[in-house]
């Protein structure tokens, strides 16, 4: 595969929706431990709404057009903090993708970087605050160092996000509902970091 086109982007989003539908109870269980227990259901509602809108796109949409549709739909339908956070991430990603028909490795890193920056700007979380930033940060760093093959970039981002999500377990939360728990949050994985790892793993597995 050379670059990632709009059709790939659409397959990726459809695969995210399917994976979240399968794993929503797991995400919600993580959130119930240290949050308000709705992360899986909220993301599922959002991505199911996205599925219903994908057919409204052009026959050959750009990656940016798909990402923008995801952004506006998530912002309106998710209902928890993940809505504005992922919504902003996809919106900034769409803006970075612009009207390019395909993303090469450099373009992909730009898109991932914009997504991370959007989340940081929206949520104002720092690394080690036990949030999705702890998955996005390492993912973007690894993606930038992975060379000029898009598959390698996707794989590097997915692996680093998964490690980042696991690394949230010993942390005390400083943002979100989990921050009310203090040391009781220790030992639990952050649900937002886990859903980030899921989204990026699905990207690496989407052909």
């Amino acid at each position, binding site marked *: 595969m050379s670059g990632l086109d709009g059709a790939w982007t659409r397959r990726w989003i459809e695969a995210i929706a399917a994976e979240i539908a399968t794993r929503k109870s797991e995400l919600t269980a993580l959130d119930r431990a240290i949050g*308000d227990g*709705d992360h899986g259901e*909220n993301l599922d*509602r959002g991505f199911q709404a996205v599925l219903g809108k994908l057919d409204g796109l052009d026959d050959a949409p750009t990656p940016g057009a798909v990402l923008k549709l995801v952004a506006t739909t998530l*912002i*309106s*339908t*998710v*209902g*928890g*903090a*993940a*809505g*504005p*956070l992922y*919504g*902003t991430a996809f919106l900034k990603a769409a803006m970075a993708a612009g009207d390019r028909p395909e993303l090469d490795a450099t373009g992909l890193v730009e898109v991932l970087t914009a997504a991370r920056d959007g989340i940081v700007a*929206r*949520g104002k979380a720092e690394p080690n605050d036990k949030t999705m930033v702890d998955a996005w940060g390492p993912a973007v760093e690894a993606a930038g160092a992975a060379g000029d093959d898009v598959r390698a970039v996707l794989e590097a981002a997915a692996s680093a996000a998964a490690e980042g999500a696991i690394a949230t377990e010993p942390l005390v939360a400083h*943002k*979100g*509902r989990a921050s009310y728990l203090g040391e009781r949050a220790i030992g639990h994985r952050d649900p937002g970091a886990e859903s980030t790892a899921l989204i990026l793993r699905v990207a690496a597995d989407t052909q």
Partner: protein
Amino acid sequence: MTVGLVIVSHSARIAEGVVELAAQMAAAVEIAPAGGTDGGGIGTSFDKVQAALTAADSGDGVVVLCDLGSAVLTAETALDFADDPERIRIADAPIVEGAVAAAVAAASGASLEQVLAAAQDQAPAAAQPATEQQDLSAPAPSAVAEIELANQHGLHARPAAELVRTASGFDAQVTVNGVDAKSMLRVLALGLDRGTVARFEATGAQATEAIAAIELLAADGFGES
């Protein structure tokens, strides 16, 4: 026309309840609730926040009060999409107390920044220590009154709002028992009950007028007689 308010809560009933409570003190202020998800569940809705911002803005701007974290994120996202983001301020304030204080300030015709300050309980400019603004050789006029609170509810809720509204109308620093009488939160925190003797002090160009107006207001039972 006044500054409007938007109440963003995870719960539709909390948002509606806060609107009800704040509107009781400020009937003329446009206060719009944006609570719960589109499906009526617990969460926040971007679309509801957008609609409420439109409903509350009469042209003088909107102050937004939020409950928990993601309500703030949703409000900030809505702000990114707003046509006139410079007319919208998100208050860093407790949702109930902030909404009541902001509503009272808005009802008195305060500006967007003043309403925001009222919600956040930042002392408005007039509450700075007198010595900072005065020429010491020519002390500003001052006036004092000690008044027994005869009205049924003391300085709670609506009577407190009446006091804040009255005090805010004068070019003077006004205090009640040492706290800023233009701050709804400060006045409420005093918890002054019926029968208490409260000490009102004013300094500044209209100090005498302010105290006279407060004495009149007290004689009128702070609107409760």
